[in-house]
């Protein structure tokens, strides 16, 4: 084993930066006191920006680090950027939200940064135990964040439910890791791949893969492990849901990609096929009957996990790159949608029913236009990132001859269009029940919305650059 060099630190620099800023927030919090907590948000903002800068710097120093536990390659870099940007938007959106909800700011921002550390590490870890630890760091932060609306019973329910079921799921994952270790004699992805190629797969391996799939399936909210999603999303603070439904999911998908494809695991095809089909169908059907916007978006996120798994089932390099692209596009549009929902919800999250959105186009043209853009992207209308994301996923699936899944996916997209459109119709074509005041859009939210809207449009108009990165990442992962 080689000694630890400076490069080892560079290769986890974004994580280190975030952790450092998180600690800084914890230290500054008691010094500032509750009344003057604004600077904490600014520290968090700087932290995400610094980690973004660290990621770009890190890009010049790819390679393994920490005795082969971490690996910096195009794949990990891609997800680092996505996670850092999502955290950035969430922090921006939280400025106003926290004051409106009277939520204590110190721990909130610190936990977001710590959570992001875990998610980033999930995407760069190439060793199962470290992956597990990263998964736990990310999960525990989000368990706590889900319960931050202390005075709301729904938030406590959300946190507890997420915690209980989430712990179960990570336990499954850990069990899978143990079995995998037992079968192949290693916890390093590369070594596992070698062992599997050399020795073939035993029933122990199949069991290990299945258990890991259960754990990760829970994290990405894929059917049949999705039942927690609506309740948790409904109760948790809206910006946190914006985070939960995008960044940890992207990270979990990254882990799934590593575990399945980099490790050459067997036996995942039909489970994933089934999970994709079920997630798309149940997610969309569930969303059809919702009247609460957060629950609607929860079901929609299940459906989108399904579309993403279609790309997994395609399993080729194109499929993997489509999945990566989809994760980025989905993160942009969903975090944006939740940014609007967070602000519109108002103090105590009173306005989260669909009917509350009637006449929003008049009360706040900016919020309504932004939400419309994100919803159109979720439908998959051209000139938005969601369109190319779906296109890449379905064309990859077609090339892999998964006609059944594609047909199911297209039918589901049509069903999905209906409930997203219902919200747009409400905002623009119906009048609100009472005379409601215009809604002010604070600077932080405006910046967050602008960033996610720009990303959504960028991916829809010039997808080439990101697609090239995604293809590079896919080949970095597979070779």
């Amino acid at each position, binding site marked *: 084993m080689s000694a630890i060099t400076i490069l080892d630190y560079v290769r986890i620099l974004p994580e280190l930066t975030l952790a450092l800023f998180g600690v800084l927030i914890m230290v500054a919090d008691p010094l500032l006191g509750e009344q003057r907590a604004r600077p904490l948000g600014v520290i968090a903002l700087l932290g995400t920006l610094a980690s973004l800068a660290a990621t770009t710097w890190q890009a010049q120093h790819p390679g393994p680090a920490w005795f082969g536990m971490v690996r910096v390659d195009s794949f990990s870099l891609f997800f680092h950027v996505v996670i850092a940007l999502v955290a950035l938007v969430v922090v921006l959106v939280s400025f106003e939200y926290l004051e409106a909800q009277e939520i204590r700011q110190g721990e909130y921002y610190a936990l977001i940064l710590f959570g992001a550390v875990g998610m980033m590490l999930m995407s760069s870890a190439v060793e199962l135990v470290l992956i597990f630890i990263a998964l736990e760091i990310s999960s525990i932060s989000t368990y706590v964040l889900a319960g931050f609306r202390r005075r709301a019973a729904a938030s406590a329910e959300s946190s507890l439910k997420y915690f209980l079921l989430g712990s179960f799921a990570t336990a499954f994952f850990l069990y899978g890791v143990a079995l995998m270790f037992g079968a192949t004699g290693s916890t390093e992805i590369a070594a596992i791949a070698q062992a599997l190629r050399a020795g073939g797969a035993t029933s122990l391996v199949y069991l290990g893969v299945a258990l890991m799939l259960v754990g990760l399936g829970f994290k990405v909210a894929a059917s049949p492990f999705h039942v927690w999603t609506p309740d948790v999303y409904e109760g948790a603070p809206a910006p946190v849901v914006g985070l939960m439904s995008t960044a940890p999911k992207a990270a979990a998908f990254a882990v799934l990609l590593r575990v399945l494809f980099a490790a050459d695991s067997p036996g995942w095809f039909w489970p994933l096929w089934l999970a994709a089909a079920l997630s798309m169908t149940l997610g969309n059907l569930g969303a059809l009957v919702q009247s609460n916007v957060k629950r609607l978006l929860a079901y929609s996120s299940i459906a989108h996990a399904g579309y993403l798994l279609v790309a997994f089932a395609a399993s080729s390099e194109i499929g993997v790159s489509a999945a990566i692209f989809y994760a980025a596009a989905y993160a942009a549009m969903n975090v944006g949608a939740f940014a609007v929902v967070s602000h519109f919800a108002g103090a105590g999250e009173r306005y989260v029913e669909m009917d509350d959105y009637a006449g929003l186009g008049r009360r706040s043209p900016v919020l309504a236009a932004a939400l419309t853009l994100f919803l159109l992207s979720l439908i998959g209308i051209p000139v938005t990132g969601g369109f*190319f994301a779906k296109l890449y996923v379905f064309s990859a699936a077609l090339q892999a001859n998964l006609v059944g899944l594609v047909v199911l996916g297209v039918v589901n997209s049509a069903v999905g269009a209906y409930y997203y459109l219902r919200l747009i119709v409400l905002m623009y*074509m119906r009048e609100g029940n009472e005379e409601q005041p215009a809604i002010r859009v604070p600077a932080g939210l405006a910046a967050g919305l602008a960033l996610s809207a720009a990303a959504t449009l960028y991916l829809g108009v010039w997808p080439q650059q990101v697609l090239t990165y995604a293809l590079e990442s896919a080949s970095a992962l597979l070779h």
Partner: protein
Amino acid sequence: MNSLLASLDRNILTLVTFLPLAGALLLLLVPRRDRDIRWLALIVTLGTFLLSLHLPARFHAGQPGFQYEVNQSWVTSPPIHYHLGADGISMWLVLLTTFLSPLCVLISWKSVQDRVKEFFLLLLVLETAMIGVFLALDLFLFYVFWEATLIPMALIIGMFGHERRVYAAVKFFLFTMIGSVFMLAAILWLYAQTGSFDYVTLQEAIRLGHLPHLHSAMLWLFLGFFIAFAVKVPLFPFHTWLPDAHFEAPTAGSVILAGVLLKMGTYGLLRFNVGLFPDESRVHAPWIAVLAIIGIIYGALVAMVQPNLKKLVAYSSVSHLGLVVLGIFTFTAAGTDGAVYQMLNHGVSTGALFMLVGILYERRHTFDLQQFGGLATPMPVYATFFLFITLSSIGLPLLNGFVGEFLVLSGAFQARMLYGILGATGVIWSAAYMLWMYKRVFFGEVTNEANQAAPDLSARERIALWPVALAALAMGVAPMLWLASIDPAVGAIVRSAAPVLARMVGP
């Protein structure tokens, strides 16, 4: 000067397409002072129209193929190109779009009072999308523009329309959306088989028979495109969304819908169905012609019994567009020339009719025919314009409708006598219901007190109506100005269909 013109030649299509969008972005930044916004929208649309005049001015009528082409890579995998080009067909449809847009701004000057900024924003975005549809020569790019017309139009209907606007907007959206999913499937399938989205490349490959393995799929590809376009035209029996959408839409929405959006359907049939799949088109021409004839007669009969002025004009569109489709699927030079000419005519005449109906609505807030009568007395100028446009719509010689209808019918007679006879009844029907409508609205005594006080046209309304009236006259008197460039373009598409002509009309 020459180098300036030459560089304009290279960039003209991009400029014309995206100028309205740039105007829309500018509009975003302008504060909500309704007057400024209206003027800005007018300036942008007028500027686009003036710029688009460059197209016919520098167009080489005799030269085959597409002109002013731009072809750049947009996305490399899959290979999607930003490929625009104009031939005699698309050029005039673009001009129709840019011609009607400033008039739509004028006609909405007073009638849109609420959410003015949103309205003109949507109108400008819609203009860019429509122009893009006519110019795109990459199937994927075409699809993107095609879909991009959908949202602004649905929002215009749903936000600014009449009572049942939400129902109409959703119906419009769903019909078109479902139709275009089939087209997307066909486009992707074609790409999967050939590796190209490029119209010109695909057309060559299919024509030269380079794609024998595609033979069994041809039928489905043809139908995929056909459904999307037939819904848009709308061809019987896909027409049910049209009366609702037209009736509920605000005036400018109806003008754009009738004037341009429906043409996207007939343009698509001609460009993609006939252009890419000439053999399939020939095989399926009989039943498509039958649907078109049913549309002609059915639309006319329903229009005849409409108690509602705006619905009457809407159903007349079904009838007129049926004639256009019939013309396309006669596969004769005359018929198809006439179909293209009739597309332009219908845009001018029916666009004008919707403007006139909208002007009346602003005064009386009703479309009910029974409420009118004797309007010629209080509104003589309005009545004159209305008569002029009515005559142009029913095809009076020396006005535009005559040229188009004559060409289509002579093509139909060449193709099959029965088509010609049945199609010709459509012309007769249209004269009947339009003139009867005119009589009920304008002649006789003023029965309703409210009509007595209706003011005649304002200066703004006259400015909006004069250009269409002049266009109708010019197109009737000097059709060769248009046909000289339409004919070669149509020839390029129909040429591939020549054998069938021989089969259908005999040696």
